C-alpha cells in the first residue's frame, strides 16, 4: 500500500483527465435520455464490486469476512441490476415508429 510519489502523481493525472472525459461525454445528452443515462452511469460505478473482491481476498477475521461478503453482495446488486434495468429501458427506445411489439 506504500505508493511512490510517481504513482500518486499518475493517479492524480488519471483522476483529472477522467473527470474531463466524464464531463465532455455527458454534456450533449438529450433530455429524453437522462433517465437511462443516470441508470447507465449507476451501473458503471458498480465496478466497486472489483474492489469488494480484492478486500474479500485478504479478509481473515470473521468480521472482515462478513463485511466483505456484504460488500460483494451490494456491489453485485449494483452491477447486475444497473445494467439490466438500463437495458430494459433502452430496449423500448429502439422501436421505430410504426413497429408494434
Amino acid at each position: 500500500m506504500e505508493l511512490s510519489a510517481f504513482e500518486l502523481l499518475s493517479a492524480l493525472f488519471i483522476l483529472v483527465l477522467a473527470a474531463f472525459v466524464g464531463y465532455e461525454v455527458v454534456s450533449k445528452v438529450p433530455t429524453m435520455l437522462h433517465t437511462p443515462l443516470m441508470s447507465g452511469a449507476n451501473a458503471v460505478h458498480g465496478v466497486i464490486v472489483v474492489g469488494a473482491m480484492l478486500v474479500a481476498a485478504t479478509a481473515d477475521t470473521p468480521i472482515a469476512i462478513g463485511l466483505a461478503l456484504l460488500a460483494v453482495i451490494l456491489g453485485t446488486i449494483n452491477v447486475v441490476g444497473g445494467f439490466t434495468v438500463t437495458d430494459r429501458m433502452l430496449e423500448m427506445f429502439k422501436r421505430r415508429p410504426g413497429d408494434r411489439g
Partner: protein
Amino acid sequence: MTTLEILTMLVWLAASVTFIIALKFLASPKTARTGNLLGAAGMALIVLWTFFTHDATDPTATPGMFGNWWIIVVGGVVGGAIGWFAAKRVAMTAMPQMVAIFNGAGGGAAALVAVVEFLRDTETNPGELLPLAFIVATLLGAIIGSVSLTGSIVAWGKLQGFVASRPVSYPGSQIVSGILVVALIALGVYVAAIEPSVPLFLLFVVLALVLGVQLTMPIGGADMPVVISLLNSYTGIAVAATGFVLSNYALLIAGTLVGASGAILTQLMCRAMNRSLFNVLFAGFGTGGGEMAAGAAGEEQLREISADDAAVLMAYGKRVVIVPGYGMAVAQAQGPVRELMDLLLSKGVDVQFAIHPVAGRMPGHMNVLLAEANVPYDRLKEMDEINDDFADTDVALVIGANDVVNPLAREEGSPISGMPILNVDQAQNVIVLKRGRGTGFAGIPNPLFSNERTKMLFGDAKPSVEQLVAGVKQA
C-alpha cells in the same frame, strides 16, 4: 512488473474504454443500447479477470483469493439474483426508486470496502499512522459511500411512499447537519493524523450514515430525481477514492467518470427546472402552500366535465395535445392513452404529446413510459418545440400533470417562479384529468384549474382515459 501484472493493467484499460464508450453511446437512442451492452461486457471482463488472476498478482495476499473464493461466489450469486430479479420485475413507473436503490447498494459497497481495508491496515500495522494520501482516500470512500447509501434509501422511501415525500425538517435541522460535518472533520483528522483508532473510525462511518439521512429528509419528493443524480455522482467519487486506496486504475477511472458525468447531469436537471442546486438541496421546496391550497377558496370555481362531453370535444377538434405527468405513470394509463391517440388519429385529429423536461419524476420518464406503450417517438414534442402551438390547439388534455403546467411559475413569489412551463392555458379548451382536488407534488395551488377554459375530469387516470376512449368511439 510480471507479464500478468502488465496484462492486468491492460484489462483495466480495456474495461475503462468500454465504460467511456457506454456513456458516450447513451447520448443517442440509436446507439444507447449497444453502449450499455458494451459497458456490461467490459464489466464482465474485469470481474472475471480479477477473480481468476488475483491470487497471482498479489503474492503478499494472505490467505489469498483461493482461500476466500467462496465469498465472491456466494456474494455474486446472491447479489446477482437480487439485482437481476429486481431489475426484471420493477414496473417502468418505479424506475427512479430502482435506480436509487442500486445506487445505494454501490455506495454501501464502497463504504464497506473502505471499512474492511482500514481494519486490515490497522491490524497489520498496529498503532502506526497510515500514509496520509492513503488514509484520506479511505476516509473519503467511507464518508461519501455512507452518505450515498442512506441518502439513496431515504430517496427511495420518499418515492415509494414509505417516507413522507414532503420536505421533513425540524427546528435547528441545519445546525445539526453543521455539527455532524464538524464532528466528521474532527474525527477524520484525528484518525488520519493522531491515532488510527478503530472505534473512532467506526463512529465516523455511523455519523456519515446519519448525515445521509439528515441531508435528504428536508428535500421534497418532487426533487428526488436531482438528489438521486447527485448521490449517483457521490457514489462515483467514493468508488474513485476506493480505486486510489486499492491502486486499481479501473476503479479510479470508472468512479471519476461517473462522478463527473453525474455532476453535469445534476446541473442539467436543475437547469431544466430553472433552479440552482443550492435551492434544490436547502430551500425545503414545497414546505409552504399546503394549507393555502387545502382551503376552500377557489374550489367552487372548478368546472367539471363528463367523460363523454370531453370525448366529443376532442373527436371534433382538429388538434389535440396530450400533456402527460406523473399521474399517468402511477395510474399505468399509458396503454389506454395510446389507444385514445390511435382512435383520434383515425378520426383525422392531429394528436401530439407535449413533454416537459421534468414531467414525471425523472427527465425522460414520460418518454420511456410512452415508448413502452408503443407511442411513436416522433409524436413526442419537447417543450420548446411545442410551446408556441398551444394557441392553435383545440384541446389540451392534461393527464396527471400539475406543476409543469402551473401558470404561477410565470409570476414572482411562488416556489416555482421562473420554472419554464408548458403554455397549456393558451389552448382553446383545457381538459384536466386529476385524481383528486389536492395540490401537486410541490404543494402549490394551480390557477390553471380554475381558468374559465379549463374543465376538470376527476378520477384515477386509467379509468378516466378508458371512458374517453369509449366516448370517442361513439362520437
